């Protein structure tokens, strides 16, 4: 590929990603952005860009990630966790990557309400906590009220934002080592392979376990897909529609008493702002 062509490809890929939603999973052979963007694709994406400009969400710009490459990696990873398929939209279409970006630039990302005083021990004990506790999504009085996300003890001096930056770059490192290419350039099953290595606790990072990063990534992908759209994810309540979740309402007395499942069009917090 000539340099000029490469530039063109990159440019259109960026627009394509920026446009989010439209494609995501299920593209040719399951590859998302795999350097396989055909000319047809490029044409399409140009057209789509201009078509979508009018409705483009002006909030969709990065507030935490500065390197575009990190954000691209994030997008690709979240899309593997919740892929677009016959069942409904995937993470990108739902706005999950922007949700995560915004969360990380706020108090959650900086661990504002967490105890972050020294000393932080990186010893056998903390290593085991991070690697062993795979069933923590099944334990505890909150199993019935909280999203099933594993919660290993948090014993790192890194805040959540730091963990993401290091984790996403580590993903590229692992991708290079395993498949000799960047994460975003891999086939879907290769991407899954890389993520699975993190999920299995096989990847060590500096100051934190790879599995801790993966758990955080998985948790926030679900949060982005299904939280109120006010946070930038669950775009147009598509996550809720997919799940038939009706959103926050003043009363569910009638539905509670009904034996049949009652499906309702969702409402959001926006409906409470009067």
């Amino acid at each position, binding site marked *: 590929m000539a340099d000029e062509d490469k530039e063109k490809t990159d440019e259109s890929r960026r627009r394509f990603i920026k446009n989010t939603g439209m494609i995501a999973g299920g593209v040719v052979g399951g590859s998302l952005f795999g350097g396989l963007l055909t000319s047809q694709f490029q044409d399409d994406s140009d057209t789509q860009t201009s078509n979508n400009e009018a409705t483009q969400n002006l909030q969709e710009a990065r507030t935490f990630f500065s390197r575009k490459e990190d954000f691209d990696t994030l997008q690709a990873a979240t899309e593997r966790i919740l892929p677009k398929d016959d069942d409904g939209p995937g993470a990108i279409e739902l706005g999950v990557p922007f949700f995560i970006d915004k969360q990380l630039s706020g108090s959650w990302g900086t661990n504002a309400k967490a105890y972050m*005083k020294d000393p932080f021990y990186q010893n056998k*004990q903390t290593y085991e906590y991070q690697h062993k506790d795979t069933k923590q999504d*099944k334990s505890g*009085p909150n199993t*019935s009220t*909280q999203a099933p996300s594993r919660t290993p003890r948090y014993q790192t001096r890194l805040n959540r934002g730091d963990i993401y930056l290091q984790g996403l770059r580590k993903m590229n490192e692992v991708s290079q080592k395993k498949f000799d290419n960047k994460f975003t350039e891999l086939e879907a099953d290769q991407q899954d392979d890389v993520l699975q290595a993190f999920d299995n606790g096989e990847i060590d990072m500096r100051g934190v376990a790879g599995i801790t990063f993966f758990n955080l990534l998985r948790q926030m992908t679900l949060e982005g897909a*299904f939280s109120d759209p006010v946070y930038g994810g669950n775009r147009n309540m598509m996550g809720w529609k997919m799940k038939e979740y009706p959103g926050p309402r003043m009363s569910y*007395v009638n*539905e509670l008493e009904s034996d049949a499942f009652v499906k309702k069009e969702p409402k959001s917090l926006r409906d*409470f702002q009067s």
Partner: protein
Amino acid sequence: MAKKLDKVDVVVVGTGWAGGVISAELSKAGKKVVALERGEKKNLEDYTGVKDELRFMNRFQMMQDLSHETITSRNTMDEQALPVRTRDEMMAGTDTGGGGVHWAGAVYRYPPYDFEIYSKTAERYGKDKIPDGMTIQDWGITYDEMEPYYDQFEKTAGISGEEDPLGPERSNDYPNPPLLESRPVRLFKDAAEELGYHPYQVASANVSQQYENPDGETLNACMYCAFCHYYGCDFGAKSDPLMTVIPTAQKTGNFELRTQSYVRRVLYDGGNKANGVMYVDTETGQEFEQPADVVVLAAFTFTNNRLLMLSEIGKPYDPESRTGVIGKNFNGQMNITFLGARGFFEDRKFNLYAGAGALGGTMSDFAADNFDHSDVDFINGGAIEIRQYGEGAITSNRVPKGTPNWGSEFKKNANHYAYRNLNVWYTAANMSWYHNYMDLDPTYKDDFGDPLLRVTNKYTDQDRNIAKFGIEKCTEIMENMGADIIDADDIPEEFDHMYQGGHYAGGVIMGDDPETSAVNNYLQMWDVDNLFVVGGSAFPHFPGHHPTVTIGSLAYRASEGIEKYLKNGGQLLKGKQEA
């Protein structure tokens, strides 16, 4: 330099149910009461228009800000304890009303057995049934003595329920009828009944109809909106201190609430009197001394224990010699005490987006000593419960075992089963052991340089055996409910330092012997006549039911004691050994 304030009759640390009840009762009795709350000032308006799962359930808006102070945790005495750093691992309420605002509202009286657990166990099975190292004891009060306080609390909170067919005697019915019966709850009850058990509707602080309590406070009827447990109620339909005892105290004109007031010490210079408390205004950094005739510690278990230890009051518990009291018998509803079975249904779809914190079915057939323990390798028991909290969309991502954790198959199953899964669990009791306790951490400090509280806690065979028993019973019921896939919970190997659920207790335990208890049954310190320590910290072990009404009822008992003390002074009761 601390600024010294004018003396008041009573200073109360904490504004949850315990501090709220005491503030209301004593200000009604004409005493000048100051309550100190480290969190922010809140009222109903703070919880209106914010039905937001992410904010409350996943970002823990109503929980303690751990950046200033937390606890450390370890399993055994020879381990290095590590801080519980994030709110994912910790659940302690903060702000006005404390944990009483985010609570689910499930109401259970503790049965007679638990108040006299040592005597009754020894009597029925012999002393050998209680293993060496299990440090259970009688509470120094009986169910019959507690009954009037339970009755009083239930009326204040407008509890909505029906009588437990296997429950202890009551002087009155609940003040309100039970909540509506949803399809999942009915399914549970039918299945349990068919098996010969005695199911009934969980009694609830989510109020079933509009109700005015004896103090003249009005509660509304629950709308089953599902934003309940972890949230403040936006409709005044969940009984909490903000809707009841705090406004009651405020109306008297004798009550002052100071928020963002972080108490660091009980002012104590030995002897049998405390002089007041020292606190910091966290907005300005100004230190204050608040003198008082009576000091009431009514904070969360962790804070009650820590304040006594930092103030060097009472004899700290030493696990090596098994002597001393403060910090002894740490107990609570750990992760192992809520195990059961989750069922997935192919042809039934429930309206699980609707619900209320305490909406559910329960049964006491395997609670306390309601069944014969001769042939089982544990003592005590628990409720078997189904609960329909109502679920947000983030929560409802449960999949049957064997489904991958992420990817297309996960997504497919999470969507498919979102409204097709139900959970039944056993709220097993948690016994006390000599090796489970609290002391001050040698390494980690709070913002002011004071040591954090350290918890040492591990599971025992008792815990694993009772959990196994419960899982089997829950699985049996779930099978009868007709689930197509049943995932029985696994028993965790060891306590995993997840302080979720907010039900942690002990350390300032009650009893009738000053050698083995810190407070008498008025929750008055044996060592310090004008110091009352109220809350879950008084539980010598954790019975197999949720704790809140017992804490509220003990607060009524303590209020009575404080009034008596203000009148006559001195120790209200004689310790067993002096008797």
